[in-house]
């Protein structure tokens, strides 16, 4: 067991990457496997600095492929293990993530998005949304929390471990380098002191007793002989994923109840939207926000209700509609018109959103 660092509520002022490391300790994470890539490096740095106090484990591997697969090894051995990556690292780590998906391993990874495709830029984007939700050669049986700031990073890192170990689907904290590198105040706490039970890790391999003597040996595989054999397994995953989706799906609405223009944004862009909404409301424009917190699975019913209430929808993100595609698929049949404000790999400011919404209101003669 790792030692607790935070035993009572403590206000911290630190970068998001540091927050993730502290939250992982609070969640009872026992081992981190990692490989350097900007902008997630300080997750590892902080984890390593804390090792004498936590008694946790760390291994710097030879690449993200091995960081992913050795994390799976740690999990198979029954440890709460995790990793963090970004950009091209997220691309090559999909190899391990798809094995986690097939073997239902509670893989936890913080993805600090950077620009893409390719090496692109190193600090900020929202262009790993599709990759994180649906990467790998499968169907995307993954749970993805998109955070909007440091308190989210603390809360959802703790939640990610619990979700992963409860449902046994790979679980992601999807953020970006702005959140990772920026300092903000955060209230750190011991989850158990707040009544949040930490789901214990249990070994897949080398459980109690001698395999083949005291108990049957465990033989895990991700390769099947027959197409039908595979489909049977995947049908059961699909059924389970759909069944648990309402328990997992989370969203946030901000002044959305009476909004004529509904902004749909996730992550840090949702915070820009909130700033814009306050300024637009001061000018008498009824605008609100629907922010999916889980991008996978989406909170479909609340999304459809919010969209149905509005006269116009604005999708905005630091990508070319990666989140919008996820939402639009679930909005089939609704007739609310939408516009887009996409800035590929570039931050969306409150000013950008104000300008766009004012234009939409004027063009459509909306009486707000």
């Amino acid at each position, binding site marked *: 067991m790792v030692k607790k660092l935070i035993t009572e509520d403590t206000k911290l002022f630190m970068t998001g990457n540091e927050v993730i490391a502290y939250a992982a300790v609070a969640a009872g994470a*026992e*081992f981190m*496997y990692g490989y350097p890539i900007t902008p997630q490096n300080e997750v590892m740095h902080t984890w390593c600095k804390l090792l004498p106090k936590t008694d946790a*484990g760390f*291994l710097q*591997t*030879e*690449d993200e*492929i*091995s960081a*992913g*697969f*050795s*994390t*799976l*090894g*740690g999990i*198979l*051995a*029954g*440890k709460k*293990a995790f990793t963090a990556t970004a950009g091209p690292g997220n691309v090559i780590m999909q*190899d*391990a993530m798809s*094995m986690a998906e097939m073997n239902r391993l509670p893989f936890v990874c913080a993805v600090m998005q950077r620009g893409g495709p390719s090496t692109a830029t190193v600090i900020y984007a929202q262009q790993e949304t599709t990759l994180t939700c649906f990467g790998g050669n499968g169907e995307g049986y993954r749970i993805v929390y998109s955070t909007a700031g440091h308190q989210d990073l603390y809360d959802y890192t703790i939640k990610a471990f619990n979700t992963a170990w409860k449902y046994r689907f790979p679980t992601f904290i999807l953020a970006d380098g702005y959140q990772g590198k920026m300092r903000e105040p955060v209230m750190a706490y011991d989850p158990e002191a707040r009544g949040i039970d930490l789901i214990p890790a249990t070994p*897949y*391999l*080398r*459980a109690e007793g*001698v*395999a*083949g*003597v005291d108990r049957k*040996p*465990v*033989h*895990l*595989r*991700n*390769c099947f002989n027959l197409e039908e054999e595979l489909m049977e397994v995947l049908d059961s995953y699909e059924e389970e994923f759909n069944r648990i989706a309402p328990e997992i799906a989370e969203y946030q609405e901000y002044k959305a109840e009476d909004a004529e223009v509904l902004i749909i944004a996730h992550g840090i862009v949702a915070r820009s939207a909130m700033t814009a909404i306050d300024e637009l409301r001061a000018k008498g424009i009824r605008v609100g926000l629907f922010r999916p917190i889980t991008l996978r699975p989406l909170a479909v019913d609340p999304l459809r209700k919010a969209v149905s209430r509005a006269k116009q929808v604005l999708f905005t993100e630091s990508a070319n509609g990666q989140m919008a595609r996820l939402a639009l698929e679930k909005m089939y049949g609704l007739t609310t018109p939408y516009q887009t404000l996409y800035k590929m790999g570039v931050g969306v400011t409150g000013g950008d959103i104000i300008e766009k919404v004012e234009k939409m209101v004027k063009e459509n003669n909306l009486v707000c």
Partner: protein
Amino acid sequence: MPNILTVPPRLPEAQNPDPGVSKFCPGCGHGMILKTLASAIDELNLQARAVYGCDIGCSLLSWNYMNIDTIQAHHGRTTPVIYGITRATPEAVGIAYMGDGGGLAIGAQHLVNAAVRNEKMLVILVNNTNYGMTGGQMAPTTLPGQVTETTPYGRDVEATGKPAKGAEMVSAVVDTEAAYVTRGTVNNLRQLKTMMKKGLQNVADGRGFSYVEALSVCPLNWRTNNVDTWDRLDEMEDFFKVGELVVPQGLEGVK
């Protein structure tokens, strides 16, 4: 007179009898190597500590062959899965079982770095000079002039380089005071078993990385009959020298 077909074969304790008839092709070396490994685990009484991972390729067919906990990984990724386990639970004796493609091509970076870091694990690399499962393509270990599906006119060393010598490569990067590196052959299973025992013991003692390369045969893809198969193995042994390359102190008692 007993009906010999009803007499079950004598298997080591560490081998799982449930899979029944071998899934490997007739004449394949994997069955011999796996049985040798299981015997080595038995003789060192390591069943309680051993954990086994297998790679993609023919080696994946062994996913339920052992009477210990096992995990089948992706191509080349068995090494990191196993050191992930042994880093998290150092009392485990981790075994990563792979072919020459898995260890020396797609997973070579893991093999090299695991050796450099002196990961406490045993890598068993089966060298049959080709990719068996995918239909007999050139492997890093394919002999000069050898015909495979991707070298239909024989391996041209000018174009594709000379065969990779895994044990020599590993020897060059390991801590020679802690690692055990050797090459055995299915021609000599008694010797191979001793090598596997030394490799296992080195890990069980917490000393260091172990690498056992096993020269093996692939008559189906080689398109060789019984005589030609063993002639080919002799040819391999001329190229890939059988014997121990790195032996740390402390394994003298392992026979």
